[in-house]
């Protein structure tokens, strides 16, 4: 089938093969530059530890947003439960990687249970267990919840994520209740998060190329038609929901290791809103859009930190206002949804051809504008 497509492609476009080679080279060059950049960043040559932390968070948020893109954008099931799954992943991972004696000291209000104190796993196993546990919970939640549609599904998943949070707050002997967990080992360095994000992107991208992925998209576009074509709605929704839960759990585990301190308040519904902002900005249903937007939002959130600590525009000095930064982001969400509903990528994926077309089109538009400007000037 692959060769058939190539033949057709050649027939349609004479220069297709040279484009393909060019695109491959461009991709390879970009990847090499990126890896070199990561290496230099990791060595502390071009970025300080703060910059490195931002890059690490970009990876984490990419995975979290990917989890929402898969279920919301690609399968069309509007789920807002990401924060709960991330909480499960974060708690599981941190309890597995903190040494027993450190855990024992931390639980000073409610004594820690024996098995929680003694459980240990290497980091890779810990994040995977966190992801799998989140996937298992997603599987259990999926049975009742996936029978709902649209906004009912949204509020039910949001409700489950709150239930998870309330349980975490109340089971003090396991989760240290509202005090939370601190001194989580800083294992997830820049390589961990970036490689994990890359693997997750590949996983979702490959998945969407399989018959399962096509079934997801057909469910998103028209459930009735999909069912008529013999697609089991429940099975595919469940698969998408479970994988989405796994990704969210994984990102939660990495997040715990990057930030070092977690508590139940961290995993409020506002976290789900933040992820929703990433997905909406990137374009619902675009994997590359999710990646770009996750990095933009995460970096932007750090870059706009100055808004919270007071700044001056020329003669005007704006005093310290905490929360201004998040106001900007919530306004951004409103602007995107009201005026630019497609987001950055819509439901398309990034391609070099697309980029070149965009550059050409923008160039042509600029030329036209300039010409019009000249004409206007001449007329006067």
């Amino acid at each position, binding site marked *: 089938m692959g060769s058939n497509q190539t033949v057709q492609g050649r027939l349609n476009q004479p220069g297709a093969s040279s484009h393909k080679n060019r695109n491959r080279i461009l991709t390879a060059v970009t990847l090499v530059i990126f890896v070199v950049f990561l290496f230099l960043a990791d060595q502390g040559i071009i970025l300080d530890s703060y910059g490195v932390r931002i890059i690490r968070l970009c990876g984490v948020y990419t995975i979290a947003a990917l989890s929402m893109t898969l279920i919301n954008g690609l399968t069309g099931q*509007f789920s*807002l439960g990401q924060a709960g799954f991330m909480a499960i992943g974060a708690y599981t991972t941190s309890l597995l990687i903190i040494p027993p004696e450190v855990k024992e000291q931390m639980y000073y209000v409610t004594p820690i249970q024996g098995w929680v104190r003694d459980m240990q796993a290497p980091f890779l196993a810990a994040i995977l267990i966190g992801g799998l546990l989140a996937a298992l919970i997603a599987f259990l939640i999926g049975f*009742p*919840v996936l*029978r*709902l*549609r*649209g*906004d*009912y599904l*949204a*509020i*039910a998943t*949001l*409700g*489950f994520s*709150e*239930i998870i949070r*309330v*349980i975490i*707050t*109340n089971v003090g002997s396991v989760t240290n209740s509202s005090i939370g967990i601190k001194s989580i080992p800083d294992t997830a360095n820049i390589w961990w998060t970036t490689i994990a994000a890359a693997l997750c992107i590949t996983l979702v991208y490959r998945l969407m190329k399989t018959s399962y992925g096509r079934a997801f998209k057909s469910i998103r576009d028209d459930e009735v038609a999909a069912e008529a074509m013999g697609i089991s709605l429940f099975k595919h929704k469940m698969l998408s929901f479970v994988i989405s839960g796994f990704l969210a759990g994984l990102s939660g585990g990495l997040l715990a290791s990057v930030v070092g301190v977690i508590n139940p308040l961290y995993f409020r*519904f*506002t976290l789900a*809103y933040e992820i*929703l902002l990433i997905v*909406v900005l990137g374009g619902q249903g675009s994997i590359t859009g999710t990646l770009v937007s996750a990095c933009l939002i995460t970096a932007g959130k750090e870059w706009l930190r100055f808004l919270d600590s007071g700044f001056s525009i020329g003669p005007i000095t704006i005093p310290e*206002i*905490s*929360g*201004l930064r*998040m*106001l900007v*982001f*919530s*306004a951004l*969400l*409103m602007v995107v*949804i*009201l005026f630019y*509903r497609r987001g950055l990528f819509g439901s398309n994926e990034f391609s070099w051809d697309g980029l070149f077309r965009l550059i050409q089109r923008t160039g042509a538009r600029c030329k036209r504008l300039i010409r019009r400007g000249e004409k206007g000037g001449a007329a006067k």
Partner: protein
Amino acid sequence: MNVLIPSMEQFVQGIANALSLGSLYSLVAIGYTMVYGILRLINFAHGEVFMMAMYFVFYVTTLFQAPWYIAFIAGIVGIALLGIVIERAAYKPLRNAPRISVLISAIGVSYLLQNLAVVCFSGIPKQFPSVPLFQDVIIVGGVHIQRMVIIVPIITAILVAALLYLVNHTKMGIAMRAASRDFDTSRLMGINVNRVISITFCIGSLLAAVGAIMWGLKYPKIEPYVGVMPGLKCFIAAVLGGIGSIGGAVIGAFLLGFIEIMLVLFLPGLSGYKDAFAFVLLIIILLVKPTGLLGDKAGVDKA
């Protein structure tokens, strides 16, 4: 889990508290149910309208030294206007967009108002003004209760009766009911649908503001996230009663209020799970009887 048998006095007090909590819930739940009935939209921002009402009253009393009744009226009017503004700015432009976009817009408004509250009013909790007329403790048959425990259900009953009259016996009410069935046909019948929607938001927000004021008298701590939990719970109450039905919202709200208070009264060990319980209830209803207790099919068909 130990079951605690409360004394008779505690039980009566519990019933009184459940009645007033149910009344508060029903004022907010009506807003959800009316908006859902017309736009098929879960108005996520309703909880934030509730929160804004509390801040509004707080600032009118502290900044202008206004007496409580003026502050209450100003708050209610201001919040009714806020409801209209939200609808015009965030929902009207998306009238022909996919429903999920409108839902995201509603989430966006909710998020925006929360952050706006953090910026404008700061995250430090504020104290809702106290009004002795409502908060004095009186003794009825050996039970100590705040006066508002009796006043709140009365106010709610009056407002619900007025609303039911409006919906069932006035021209505006007929227009509302028509619009909730079918926009296009309503337009053909000469109904200004946009106006009907604005008025629906106005009434919903107005009732939420009354609910918020009563809530503030009972639980005087105001912070930017104060509206979230009551908001979600009242939505659950509306679903429980049958979304789209005003009577259903009131019944659902009272039921939820009773269950919550009784749960804490009889099983105090579970009181930490109080908030989770409402969601469990929601999921059970959606699975067993998605139309709720009084709901008609029209409300759920398109969901």
